[in-house]
């Protein structure tokens, strides 16, 4: 047949011209692949740089009155006694205001820090008039001194926006004295409740699906459903929490049913509602992670236990769970670190943005660290960006310590099996 021709034999030389191009192409693409990886890392570095850049730096502070001149004899305000501080306050504020302070609680009976606070707030009134980034503080000092000309009365100092006072003082409308104490406590309260709610239920569901569930339609629906829930946007959980925990279960979540607050003023926007919402949010994550951990337990362990006559629950409780526990805990901690950074569901559930008192229990109003960051970031004044960056540092440190715990657990777990 005509198409049954003998093919012309090819020599290695026929392939060579192509080879060069193919190799070049290969190298070119390898650069592309490397570059995409580099982009990810560069952005991460830019993110961290940007935060550090705003969390530290020079600030120019203007004071209505020079703080050191107030004592009259050159001593710093911090060295004065309570009586002297009260006198300073009386001298510098209007009589009406002073009377109001006295009626709120006699000044002589207060601590010196408290009066000092009042003096700073009402008399000294320090105000940030300009601030510079960490980068500028190190490398563009001449620019800073040029710009300082505009503020002759300002005192320049290097400010670390994150310091001990920032962590231990409550929220304030003044950026200079605002802190994240209430927000940290709020975050801890909510994730504690999320853990108490999500952990037993999540592990229970994982045990059921791995150790008890036969391959029936109902169980398949449960499994598919859990996978789908893991993909639901977090804000939807917020909407669910608003409808169920805040509104429907208001008597429970506000504490009215326990007689803790008056039923007429009950408000379901509490720590409890937020914690349970986050609990629902991390439930699918805990279930999926725990299932993986339980799956990893070798079958021989179960069979040995059954062989000795153990019941199903005895097998689970004394053999499967101890082996899977560190895996389950690792997965749970990772889920908690997701919960601690969540903002959107808590905004919808109704976290309050301005709270100056510590949350006192599950039924108190609350704010959390991410909420605080969100609120400060969206404020128009630049100085709030600085404390937002400082709050981000606090949040990232909390996350880092959670994840470090998970890594330590994971390592111990890998060694054992």
């Amino acid at each position: 047949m005509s198409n049954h021709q003998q093919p012309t034999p090819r020599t290695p030389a026929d392939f060579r011209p192509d080879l060069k191009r193919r190799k070049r192409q290969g190298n070119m693409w390898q650069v592309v692949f490397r570059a995409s990886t580099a982009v990810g890392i560069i952005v991460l570095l830019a993110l961290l740089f940007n935060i550090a850049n705003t969390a530290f730096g020079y600030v120019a502070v203007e004071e209505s009155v020079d703080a050191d001149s107030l004592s009259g004899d050159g001593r710093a305000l911090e060295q004065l006694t309570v009586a002297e501080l009260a006198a300073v306050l009386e001298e510098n504020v209007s009589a009406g205001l002073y009377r109001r302070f006295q009626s709120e609680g006699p000044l002589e009976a207060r601590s010196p820090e408290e009066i000092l606070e009042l003096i700073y707030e009402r008399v000294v009134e320090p105000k940030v008039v300009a601030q510079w980034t960490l980068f500028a503080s190190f490398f563009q000092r001449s620019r800073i001194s040029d710009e300082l000309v505009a503020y002759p009365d300002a005192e320049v100092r290097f400010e670390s926006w994150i310091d001990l006072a920032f962590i231990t003082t409550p929220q304030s409308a003044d950026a200079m004295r605002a802190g994240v104490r209430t927000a940290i406590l709020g975050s801890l309260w909510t994730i504690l409740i999320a853990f108490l709610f999500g952990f037993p239920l999540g592990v229970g569901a994982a045990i059921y699906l791995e150790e008890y569930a036969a391959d029936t339609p109902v169980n398949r629906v449960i499994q598919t459903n859990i996978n789908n829930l893991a993909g639901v946007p977090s804000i939807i959980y917020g909407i669910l929490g608003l409808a169920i925990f805040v509104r429907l279960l208001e008597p429970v979540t506000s504490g009215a049913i326990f007689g803790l607050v008056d039923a007429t003023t009950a408000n379901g926007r509490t720590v409890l509602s937020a914690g349970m919402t986050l609990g629902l949010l991390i439930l699918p994550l805990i279930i999926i992670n725990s299932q993986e951990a339980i799956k990893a337990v070798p079958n021989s362990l179960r069979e040995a236990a059954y062989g000795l006559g153990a019941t199903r629950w005895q097998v689970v409780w004394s053999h499967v769970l101890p082996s899977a526990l560190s895996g389950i805990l690792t997965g749970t901690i990772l889920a908690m670190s997701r919960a601690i950074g969540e903002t959107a569901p808590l905004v919808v559930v109704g976290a309050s943005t301005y709270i100056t008192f510590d949350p006192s229990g599950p039924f108190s109003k609350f704010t959390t660290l991410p909420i605080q960051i969100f609120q400060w970031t969206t404020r128009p004044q630049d100085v709030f960006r600085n404390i937002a960056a400082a709050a981000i540092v606090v949040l990232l440190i909390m996350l880092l310590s959670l994840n470090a715990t998970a890594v330590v657990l994971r390592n111990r777990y890998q060694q054992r099996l």
Partner: protein
Amino acid sequence: MAAKEGQLQTPAAEADTLLALRKRPRVGESLIQAFLFLCGILSVFTTIGIVYELSKESLLFFTRQQWESTNKPIVEDIEATWTSFEVGTSGSAVDIGDTVRLEHEVMLVTDIQRDRLIVERGVDGTVPAVHRAGMDLEIAEQVTLREFFGKTEWNPQIGKYGIWALINATMVTSLIALSIALPLGLGVAIFLSEYATLRTRSILKPILEVLSGVPTVVYGYFALTFVTPLLRSMLGRDTVEIYNTAAAGLVMGVLILPIVSSMSEDALSAVPNSLREAAYALGATKLETALKVILPAAFSGITAAFIVAASRAIGETMIVAVAAGAGPKFTFNPFEAAETMTGHIVRISGGDLSYNSLDYNSIFAIGLMLFLMTLVLNIISQQVVRRFREEYE
């Protein structure tokens, strides 16, 4: 009782042994199993709860009647017995069949003669009353599905409920994010799975995981304080607004990059080595092996990764809430401010939202849209994995 050697058990003792060996009812075990089943079924209740609440409140959103001013004052005093009266010519139009309201009295418009309305007084159980001249006529409005899906303006203050203003912004940010995350993520995945040594991989993977572990509000901060100023200095302050969807989209791309890269890398690594070796034996270069053999073999997993990334981008909230701007706007310009579905929900639910307002109901209507969109994407991704998976044994 001392048993003699070789003696058989008495019938009674035999029955005792059988009884002892029989499966005993264990109440504790059953209770535990029931509790564990409840834990499992709770997730189904969560889904039912989501669907039920979203649907219920959305239904209220579409059926709730609200009164809107027409800016048409009545020109004369109206007695309680009159069935027709004159109204001002200005203001929005009133049609036959509309329900209108004067103070607390509701009326049905049965006919219109120029500026004279013929009405049925005191409907909906209200009582006809005397009204003074100059009183503003209000008209009953309902959000119709046609308006919801057909209009591009969302402004609840003046009764505009066109969801496309919000969906459009969601689409713009998501598309920008995906156009960053998909090529980069796939590049990272190919590099990690085909090129990188085991050591490099063990260093790079955790770093990329950190990217997905950073809280989204931090990304929002990054978009607003770093990416937006960068864009503005590069493209000009007049082109780029302070709040814009481009910065939000770009940063969102970085957020979902690890999702694409890690899911795709899992898919690529799952392709058996025999395929690579076969390709090398035929003289293929590393690139040709990766692109023409491994990539098609991992197609289903990579597609699933892309779809999951898209669903994540649509539901992403804090980045857009911080950086994309407040105020719905139908625009395709990525350098303008626009509000996404999620951003809108966050903005109007901040603070104490009253339960009986249209705003409250609208959260649920938008949420339902969002839920359905992500659900469809998730289901498609699961189907893709199931349907197109290449099995190698």
